[in-house]
Every structure is written in C-alpha cells, then in structure tokens.
C-alpha cells in the first residue's frame, strides 16, 4: 500500500522525474566518455611502450668531429681524406664511423652507472608524389631499445619492402601489399610499423605533426644504408638497476654539461620531457585532467542539482509522511518505499549513461590516433570507472534521499500535518518587510511568496545558480578551439614560410617578404621555448594583445610572449627572462603578451636576436612571405593554409571533447531551469487556485506568482556571471600551472544576453506547461488536491 502511494505521487511528476533521469544519464555519460576516451588509450599505450622497450631518455650528440674524436680516428682508422662531421665520416669509412660512435658510447657509459645505451640512426627522405611533397624518416632497426612494433604485417624482408606508419597509410590509401614510389624506386608495403621513440611524427624543424604528409619508415638494414641521404643519429637509453628518473635527472642531466669528458653530448632529455616520444604522456595526463576535470565538474553539479530536486520532491511529501506516522507506521516502513523508487528510477538512468559513454569513448579514443602514433585498441571496461561513474552518484542520491526523509521523520507528526512553518523571522523577510510595507498587496505578494518560504526559495536560488553557471560555462567554451588554433593564422598576413637551407644562402627578401629568425629550442629556465625574431615594424606578422591593440613595436624594448606561456609559467609584463641563445645567456624584460593561446613562444626583435645569436643584425634563417616562394632556394616551404588544415585534424579531438561538454552542459542547464520552473509553479498551484476563486485574473496571478520568480531568476543569472568568470579564470590558471594546458575560457556580453534570454524562454515554457496542467482540473478539485 505504501509502495503504491509513493508510486502514485511520483507518477504525478513523471515529466520532471524523466528529465532528472536525463540529467543523471548525461552526467554519467560525460564522465564515462572522457574517462574511457582517454583511459582507453592509456592502458594499451603503456603496454606497447613496455613490450617495445621505449627509451627512458635520449642523448643528442654533436655531428662535428671534436679534438678527442680526431685523436681516436688518427689512431684507429686510416682515412684518406679529411672529414669534419660524423655523417661525413660515415660516407667515406663506415667502419671507422661505427668505431667512433662506439667509443663515444663507451665514454658515456664509463661516466654514468646504471644506464644502458644504444645508437639510433635515421635518414630523412623527401619525395614528391602527385604534386605533393612527402617526408619519411627512416629509422634503422635496433636490437635492444625502441624495438619496431608491427600493428599489421611484418618487417621488410627484402630491399624492396618498406614498413610505414598506419596513420600515413590510412590517410593516403596505402594498404599493406600496395606499392609506394619513393624517388623512383618502388617499395612494397610489408606492414604498418610503430616506433616507441616516435609517438608523434615530429621531426621537422618546426612543430608540424602531420600524418598525411609525414611518415616514419622501416627498411632492411641493407636498404637503409643504400639511401643517399645524410645519416642522423641519437642515442637511446634505458635506466637499469631501478634507477629513478629523478636520480637520473640529478646525477646525469644536471651533470653532463659540466663534464669535461663529454664535450660531444649536446643534450640529454628524459622521455617524459621529450616531445616526439613523451608528449603522449603529457597529452594523456592533460587530456585526463581536462576531460575528467571538466566532466567531473559538470557531472557533480548535475548530481548536486538532482539531489536538490529529489529533496524538493520529498519535502512535498511531508503531509503524507505525517499522516502515515500518525497512524503508527514505523520510520523504516515509511522510508523504504521512497528509497526503493528513487533507486529504481535512478539506477537505470546512471547505467544507461555509463553505456552510452563507453560507446562514445571509442570514436574519441580513435581521434588520438589521427595525431599520435599508437596501436589501436578497443575501449575496455574498468571497475574503477564503473565505480566513479555509476556507484558513487547512485549512492550519493540514495544517501541524500535517506537523510532528507530521516530529517522529515524526526519531526513530530503534528508538525508534519500542519503546513510547513513559514519563516517570517528570517533576515531577508525582515529586511524586505519594511520596504514591502508600502507596496500594494499584489506587488508585495510577489516577494512574500519567496521570502516567507526560505527553503523553497533557496532551492530555487541554488538550482538557478548552477543552471546559469553551466550555461555560461558552455558558452565560454565555444571559442576555445578557434583560439587555440586558427586565430593565430587569421591574425597574420604571411601565407608562406620558407626555411633556409643551412648550406645554401637564402634568397634576400623582396617586396612583402620579411626576414625572420626561428630558434625552435631556446632554453628558458628549465624549459625549451620557441624563440622568434621578428621585425619590430613587421607588416605581415603583427602581434596583437588580448585587447586587440597592436604591440609589434614593443619588440624594440624587449620580449613579447604568448598568452599561453604567460599562463603556464606565470610570467607577467615587466618580468625579466633569462634566455640561453646559442652560447649567450641574456636577460630581457617582457614588454607585452600576445593573444596566442598555443605554443611556448617568445618573440624578440630580429635584429637584436641576430646580434646575440651570430653577431649579425642582418641574420635570418626563415622568410615569411605573402607571395609564393621559390622551392629551390629553401630547405622547406610551408604554406600557412596547410598548417591550418593540419591543425584542424589535430583539433578534431579538442573539438569533439569540447562539443560534448558544451552540449551536455547546455542541456543540463536548460533542464534544470525547466524543472525548477515547473516545480515552482506546482508549489503554487494551491495559491493560484485560491487567487482565481477570490477573483484575481490570470494577468494579476502571473504577476504575483511568476513575476517574483522571473525577476529573481534573472537576477541570479546576472549575479552568476562574475562568479562564473572568476571560476573560469581560476580553472584556466589551474590547468595552465598544473597541466600546462591552456583553456582560453571566454566571456562575452552576448553570452549573458543569450543565456538570460534562454532562461526567460524556458521559464515561460515551463510556466505555460504547468499552468496548462492546472487549467485542466476544476478549481475546487485543484484546491482540494493541492491543499497545503
């Protein structure tokens, strides 16, 4: 009987309950998608790195033959001609080259314990096909560290076979078994290969990550040696005997620059800090932080709102509970049906969200593979995620419901049977009382209905606040991906970037072309930054700050840094930054911050940079141009159009993530406004009916009942704006500092306008629906039904 009573009660509010169900579903959906989308990559990726023995660190060496090397060569090789570089040496005496390398490796191993190192050679091959230029970095197979990993097919067995990246193959319609013509030689694709030291196809001078025009490749050792291109090399290393990265950092990385026995070592980088191999770690960590962080925020707000709503439903049951109590039902008998139905209704909604989420996670995790070179994998369910996505919110709802019922049950039956106490003495009512005295009763009513029932008013205020927050939150994310990517190129006028060949002199810039210096890895503190030397009167690469003021000429006085660098490192205008440019250490002041939300970039005056770098104010190594550049004069030319295309692929992932967040939070926000409105009007059904009986017309009643809520709703929306803004700034700072991720949350006046308009529309829709419901029953029945 009690079960039936509860069921009937809930049935009356089935639309609201359904919508609450939608919120619950969405909240577990968003969390599950983000968690599995990222986590679905994490686990198989770690396994892949494990089996293919990813390097723990990488050592870069000078190609130049140094004094000690010369001595070694003199006593070990019989060279006929003079060489200055190791790559040159390899061309004339391969055995001597390997001996010399071996010697260098020995020197390193003698200096440091607990490491195991191996040479990693590569050759970069450029080739054209159908008017498009491609680049393949061939890696020579190793035997211990960074083993080749085949996602499909096998290693090349003959000299006319090749293994390429799956992403490159897929985006160029090249399957295993197809042939690929590289500079006149046909290779049969024997398989798709991955190399753990390249989880990003990142090997250009600039930071282009593009799996359509770039691939990693594997040939037989013999064929590798047959390639005419210059050899490139690095040393891959493993930590042994349980050495930790921290110990290695302290004993090796902080030491090698001062070690006189290692003049040929230019850099040692731990994998976690190495873009090409370790960026995926940061990405996954960042993706986790972002996806999980944001989705947790949204999901928690959603569950909180559901809790509030459920409590509202339960509080409206006071009378019923009072009657049962007065008849002698035990607290347990009364509680169980409520908890039972709340469980029955919420559990499927949560589980549904979980399953939708795990389905949606697969395409999301596949997006990673358009950027990162990783093995594909199916999303696997994990118990932890299930707990957080399903069990926690479920228990939360049950516990909240339980405590509300318990609180109600703790009151005496008489208190429950009488209408809920009106708090005429609360602060707001008192304060407003004086002011309201002068108003007509109809105007007064508007406010009294709110203040004199603090509990309901608070529910309304809190609910609306969260709703407004979510809606503003989603608007603020609208522009994020544009800001992170295309905005930069839309603001600049150069269409082509030409990278000068070190050996050939660059064209002297003409017309709309400008000299630029780009130094991709300048050390700033313990971080590598991308230093760009720009003309301070540049016409085709103007720097603009967040307020749209042009700041290019500030380069005359010092540095201009990107907004992302400023957020991540906390640099402000006026700070002095210590840059290591070549051999020089220079301290320069930050003069301004550009509105660029991606890249750790520092701009300085080209002339000054040239002067510091090579003692020449005329120096440049890159040309920015509005018009097309002559390919013969440059090592590489990139069109910005192409960069934008590429970054669009990269940003597909971001866009998807943010789109999910935006849509989910707008829907949740809208639903909350709707339910709160309907519930609020329903609370007032009795008052509305009574006013009608007394003779008030609809317009007057709307003014009294709806007017107050509408006004306060709008006020809440407006008050939420600064709070939301502060929260966005806070989130941006947190993400930037802890995860080095920049989210340019953005607030614009129209966001406030649109969200307030949205509120008003939903409010009136809810009110209309509720009132139509009331109009369907006769007045006297309504009065009996909703008697308080």
């Amino acid at each position, binding site marked *: 009987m009690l079960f039936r009573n509860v069921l009937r009660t809930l049935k009356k509010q089935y639309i609201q309950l359904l919508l609450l169900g939608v919120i619950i579903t969405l909240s577990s959906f968003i969390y599950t998608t983000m968690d599995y989308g990222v986590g679905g990559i994490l686990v198989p990726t770690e396994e892949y790195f494990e089996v293919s023995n990813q390097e723990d660190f990488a050592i870069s060496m000078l190609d130049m033959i140094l004094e000690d090397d010369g001595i070694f060569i003199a006593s070990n090789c019989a060279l006929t001609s003079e060489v200055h570089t190791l790559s040159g040496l390899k061309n004339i005496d391969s055995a001597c080259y390997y001996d010399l390398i071996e010697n260098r490796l020995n020197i390193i191993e003698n200096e440091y314990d607990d490491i195991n190192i191996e040479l990693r050679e590569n050759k970069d091959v450029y080739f054209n096909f159908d008017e498009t230029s491609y680049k393949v970095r061939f890696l020579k197979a190793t035997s211990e560290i960074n083993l080749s990993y085949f996602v499909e097919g096998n290693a090349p067995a003959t000299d006319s076979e090749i293994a390429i990246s799956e992403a490159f193959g897929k985006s160029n319609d090249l399957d295993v078994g197809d042939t690929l013509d590289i500079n006149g030689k046909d290779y049969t694709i024997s398989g798709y290969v991955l190399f753990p030291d390249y989880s990003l196809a990142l090997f250009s001078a600039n930071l282009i990550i593009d799996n359509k025009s770039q691939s990693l490749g594997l040939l037989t050792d013999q064929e590798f040696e047959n390639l005419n291109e210059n050899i490139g090399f690095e040393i891959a290393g493993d930590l042994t005997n349980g050495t930790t990265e921290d110990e290695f950092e302290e004993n090796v990385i902080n030491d090698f620059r001062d070690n006189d026995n290692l003049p040929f070592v230019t850099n040692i980088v731990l994998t976690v800090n190495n873009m090409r191999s370790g960026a995926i770690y940061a990405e996954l960590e960042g993706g986790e932080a972002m996806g999980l962080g944001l989705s947790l925020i949204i999901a928690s707000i959603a569950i909180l709102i559901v809790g509030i709503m459920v409590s509202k439903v339960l509080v409206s049951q006071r009378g019923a509970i009072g009657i049962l109590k007065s008849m002698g039902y035990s607290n347990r008998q009364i509680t169980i049906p409520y908890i039972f139905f709340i469980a029955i209704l919420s559990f499927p909604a949560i589980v549904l969200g979980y399953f939708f989420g795990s389905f949606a996670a697969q395409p999301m995790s596949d997006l990673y593979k358009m950027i990162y070179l990783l093995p594909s994998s199916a999303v696997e369910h994990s118990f932890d995620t299930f707990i957080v996505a399903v069990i926690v919110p479920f228990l939360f709802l049950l516990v909240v419901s339980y405590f509300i019922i318990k609180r109600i049950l703790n009151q005496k039956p008489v208190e429950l049977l*009488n*209408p*809920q*106490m*009106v708090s*005429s003495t609360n602060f707001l009512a008192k304060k407003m009382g004086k002011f309201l005295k002068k108003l*007509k*009763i*109809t105007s*007064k*009513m508007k406010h*009294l*209905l709110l203040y*004199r*029932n603090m509990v309901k008013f608070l529910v309304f205020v809190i609910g609306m606040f969260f709703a407004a927050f979510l809606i503003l939150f989603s608007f603020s994310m609208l522009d994020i991906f544009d800001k992170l990517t295309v905005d930069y190129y839309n603001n600049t006028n150069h269409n082509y970037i030409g990278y000068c060949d070190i050996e050939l002199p660059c064209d002297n810039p003409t017309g709309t072309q400008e000299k630029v210096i780009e130094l991709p890895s300048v050390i700033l503190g313990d971080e590598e930054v991308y230093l760009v030397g720009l003309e301070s009167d540049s016409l085709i690469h103007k720097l603009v700050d967040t307020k749209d003021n042009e700041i290019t000429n500030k380069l005359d006085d010092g540095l201009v840094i990107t907004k992302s660098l400023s957020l991540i490192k906390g640099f402000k205008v006026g700070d002095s930054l210590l840059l290591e440019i070549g051999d020089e250490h220079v301290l320069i002041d930050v003069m301004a911050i550009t509105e660029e939300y991606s890249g750790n970039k520092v701009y300085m005056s080209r002339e000054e940079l040239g002067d510091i770098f090579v003692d020449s104010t005329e120096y440049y190594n890159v040309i920015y141009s509005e018009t097309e550049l002559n390919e013969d004069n440059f090592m590489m030319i990139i069109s910005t159009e192409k960069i934008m295309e590429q970054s669009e692929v990269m940003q597909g992932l971001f866009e998807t993530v943010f789109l999910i967040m935006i849509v989910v939070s707008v829907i949740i926000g809208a639903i909350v406004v709707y339910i709160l409105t309907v519930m609020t009007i329903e609370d007032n059904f009795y*008052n509305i009916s*009574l*006013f*009608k*009986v*007394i*003779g*008030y*017309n*609809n317009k*007057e009643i709307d003014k009294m009942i709806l007017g107050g809520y509408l006004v306060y709703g709008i006020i809440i929306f407006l008050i939420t704006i600064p709070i939301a803004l502060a929260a966005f700034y806070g989130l941006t700072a947190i993400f930037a500092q802890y995860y080095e991720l920049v989210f340019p949350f953005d607030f614009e006046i129209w966001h406030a306008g649109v969200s307030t308009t949205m509120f008003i529309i939903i409010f009136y829709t809810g009110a209309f629906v509720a009132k139509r419901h009331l*109009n369907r029953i*006769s*007045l*006297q*029945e309504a*009065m*009996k039904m909703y*008697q*308080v």
Partner: protein
Amino acid sequence: MSIKLENVTKTYFTGEVETHAVKNVDLEIKDGEFIVLLGPSGSGKSTMLNIISGLDTPTSGKISIDEEIISDMNSKQLTKFRRDNLGFIFQQYNLLQTLSVSENVEVGREVSLLPFTVEEVLEQVDLIPQINKYPFQLSGGEQQRVSIARAVVKNPKIMFCDEPTGALDEVMAKEVLGILQKLNEKYKTSVVLITHNPNIGAMADRIIKLNSGEVVEVIENKNKLKASEISWG
C-alpha cells in the same frame, strides 16, 4: 442578484463507478435571499455550491445569475464575474500560508469594487489581537474566522459559505452568522450557506434539503430569527 438552476446534474466518473453528486436540480435563489442548504454528508451540498459559483462546471443543465449564464462562461469571464460579485467561505479554511492574517484579508479586499476596511472586518470577527499572526499560528476557529473576514471584506453581491461555523463554538458561531445576516439585511447580499446544523435554518428565508444529489424538500421560513436568537444544538 438572483440565481437560477435548470435541470443541473453533476456526475463524477471514477473508473467504472459513476457518482451523481448533483441530480436534475431546478432551483431559483432570489436577489437578497438567505438560503440554507441542509443534507447528510456526501449528499452533494459542496458540489452544488461549487457549480453555482462557477468553481466547477456541471455535467449538464444551465445556471444563470441575473441574466448571465454562468455555465456558458469561459474561465476569463468567470474570473471577472467572481471578482466583482462573489465571496467564498470554504469548508477547508483555504488560507494563504505565506501571508499574515491582515494580509490574507487584504488579498480579498484588493480585488473588490466597494470593499470594507480590513480592520473593520477583523474587528467584527474579533481577530484584532491576531492581526500579525500567520495561519499556522492560529487555532482552527481563528483560521475559519480569517477565511470569513476575507470573504466579507469584499462586500460581495452573493456570499457562498460552506460550513462557515463548523469549527466555532456557539458564541463565536452566532457572531459570524450575525455578520452574514447583517450583510444580507443591510447590503442585500444573497447568502447561500451550507450547514449540518438544522437550527441555523431558522435564520434563513428558505431551507433547501438535499439527499443523494437531489432536492428533496424546500421549506419557506416565514418566521426569521435573529442569529443571536437561534437555539443551538
């Protein structure tokens, strides 16, 4: 104002069961008349009152007040009509919980054409000391008196009262009935009053007895008593 019911029926359908709450009632209430409706519980008194006053619609039949046909009015017209002409006192007290005693009465006063003052009316029902209390702070009888004051303050043309004295003791009940009688005599307000107490019939112009939704007897009362002269229970 005079009220006319022609062949009015109200049937409730609850699942399979039909309840004829009011059955084929023909009735005329003259301008300024004081009517008492008597009948056992469930006989359809409240239902009839609700239909007459336009709070509910009849299943069939016609209701007119003066020349206006209530049963044909839309809800907007009904509202206007109620606002200008009718006062209600309910079986349940039906007070607004968020408003104080004086504010509840004020709500009634606000929409009337020729209202009395709030104090005047509260004085009559002896509620001046409770003027700033909220409904939950009042006794049942006090709540009923607030509900009466709220109807009276409107100075309506017709007053509908469903058990207005149910929660009152003899003295207070007579007081309230006296107020209604005074309205009726002084302002020619028609009064339709439901009660279980047959003695109250003594102050009416006519007594109408209902049973199972049908008018079973109409008694003309030639010898009207003053409210204070009624012999109680």
